[in-house]
């Protein structure tokens, strides 16, 4: 249980705050015109990445979506190198060649954001197969959006993971929308029933409650590690920004995001809970906030100062040998 360990509580908060700060800052900088490309922000969904990844180590893998920054941070990737990557600079996590949509660090078990909706689940089955075959004890987690839950590649992966009895956890991050389309409309049936229909347990979790996610993930991951096969978590949460930066979000209700930020924010809920229960003090959390704000300032400054890749870089990294 997350509550039972002060270190874990601090870690959970630090990570959630890092993601939040990172994303808020990328949002601002993007609006300022310094960041190129399609950028999808994870603000509002922090508890999911953190609650799940806290159970994972370097031998465990995750596969992310186009909305990958949060998963990256939660999986322990270098945050400053991430910022450089999003700016498309040398020293970026992918040398500036991947950008936000392909941010990855295999050495940390982060198999990449993915520009293809549904691209990740098959790959994650592969990482789980490696773990099973080489008996590493590792597990693999596929993060999938509500929209991505309708992609055939995702659904096939449920069955493959079941049939091969792979140590996989599918985490459906249902933020209510796929672009401008409501999940209420696009998802026939239910996520947990789908899991059960393929022969694995499916659990619905409140995505603003990092404690709940942590607990549900623990069960699923322990199950996988014990060789008892895949399972699915249906995490209900919300995104605070547009589908991508630049989206005017006219499809959302008036005041929807404001209300979410006010009443359902995972960081606020965490703070209230741990301070009221006397597990942590507000001052500690404020200090973390300040430190992280400064750290992200630095990350942005360093990214802006980093040089872009050069002509030589265009032709490298296509093959190991050719």
């Amino acid at each position, binding site marked *: 249980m997350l509550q039972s360990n002060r270190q874990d509580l601090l870690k959970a908060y630090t990570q959630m705050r890092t993601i939040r700060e990172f994303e808020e800052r990328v949002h601002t900088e993007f609006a300022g015109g310094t960041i*190129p*490309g*399609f950028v999808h922000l994870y603000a509002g969904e922090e508890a999911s990445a953190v609650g799940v990844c806290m159970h994972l180590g370097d031998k465990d893998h995750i596969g992310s979506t186009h909305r990958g920054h949060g998963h990256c941070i939660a999986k322990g990737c270098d945050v400053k190198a991430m910022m450089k990557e999003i700016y*498309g*600079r040398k020293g970026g996590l*992918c040398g*500036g*060649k*991947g*950008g936000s*949509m*392909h941010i990855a660090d295999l050495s940390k078990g982060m198999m990449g954001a*993915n*520009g*293809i*909706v*549904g*691209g990740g689940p098959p790959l994650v089955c592969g990482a789980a197969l490696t773990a099973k075959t080489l008996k590493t004890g590792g597990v693999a987690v596929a993060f999938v959006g509500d*929209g*991505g839950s*309708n*992609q*055939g*590649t995702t659904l096939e992966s449920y069955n493959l993971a079941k049939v091969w009895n792979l140590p996989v956890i599918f985490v459906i991050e249902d933020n209510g*929308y*796929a*672009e*401008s*389309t*409501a*999940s*209420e*409309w*696009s*998802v026939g049936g239910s996520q947990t029933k789908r899991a059960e229909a393929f022969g694995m347990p499916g659990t619905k979790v409140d995505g603003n409650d990092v404690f709940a996610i942590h607990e549900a993930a623990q069960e699923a991951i322990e199950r996988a590690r014990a060789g008892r096969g895949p399972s699915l978590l249906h995490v209900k949460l919300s995104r605070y920004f547009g589908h991508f930066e630049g989206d005017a*979000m*006219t*499809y*959302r*209700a*008036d005041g*929807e995001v404001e209300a979410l930020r006010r009443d359902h924010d995972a960081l606020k809920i965490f703070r209230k809970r741990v301070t009221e229960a006397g597990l942590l003090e507000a001052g500690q959390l404020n200090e973390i906030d300040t430190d992280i704000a400064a750290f992200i300032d630095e990350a942005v400054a360093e990214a802006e100062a980093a040089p*872009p*890749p*050069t*002509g030589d*870089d*265009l*032709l490298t990294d*296509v093959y190991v040998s050719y």
Partner: protein
Amino acid sequence: MAKKSYRQAINEALALEMRRDPTVIVMGEDNAGGMGAPGADDAWGGVLGVTMGLMPEFGRERVLDTPISESAFIGAAVGAAATGLRPVAELMFVDFMGVCFDQIFNQAAKFKYMFGGNAVTPVVIRTMYGAGFRAASQHSQTLYPMFTHIPGLKVVVPSSPYDAKGLMIQAIRDDDPVIFFEHKVMYDIEEEVPDEAYTIPFGEANLTREGEDVTIVAIGRMVQFANEVADTLAKDGINCSVIDPRTTSPLDMDTILESVEETGRLVVVDEASPRCNMATDISAAVAQHAFAALKAPIRMVTPPHTPVPFAPQLEDLYVPNPAQIETAVRAVAGYAR
């Protein structure tokens, strides 16, 4: 005649045909947008706004939003085409072909042949292609060579708003499956476009510049670069013909061969990856059919054999540019056996 953008031209073509023919429907992810959502309807009109305004006019029965299930809905468009509708389905980025290609190349493309002629499949698949948007490796590819490779498909790559409108109307009225490539960087380009409906036939190239020294064949966004280069070089006394095939399948080889018969020199500009692409397709056909006329090596101007990089500096180096085209044209113009 009003100035219209490439985006508007396509939108207008869709609207005109939907008004004319009740069997024309449009579908794709967020093609209207806001489906099931609490806020505005027609919230997106497609990811870059091309289908905006169609749903309010034609209703959700004819402008269908879809789940993110490309195989199912592209396949549904194909099945609907084979049974009496004329669907225009959007494969948002052509890079997503990998999750639904079967319905296009094994089903739509082959029905007529496999069924001994007893099928008509008038489906149009609209799709975005091309680099320059800082959209990285999985949202920037120029994949028309793959579709051109497949017998049974027609492939359209308009290079201007005027052409986009006329070719889209032709595509919708055409009885064969058509893949319609829209360059995402060109949506805001404007030119005079008539308000009424008109068609541009497939397989008829457009000669955008006439000159007797060098033939430049360019496709899609590359046509404007080729035109620029032709204009620059004309000042130096190198006169180029620029040929825009407009459709890669069928391909108007006659126009290309005629021009090479005159100039004896060919440069082909293609934004697609260099192997087995349209540059090789056209160059090889010329080397087979107009060899006697050739006075210089054929030159192909293409990106390198790499994925499309994210960093703007790299992407700008990746995409073929006017300077590279100019170098190639000067080289063949100055070549003496």
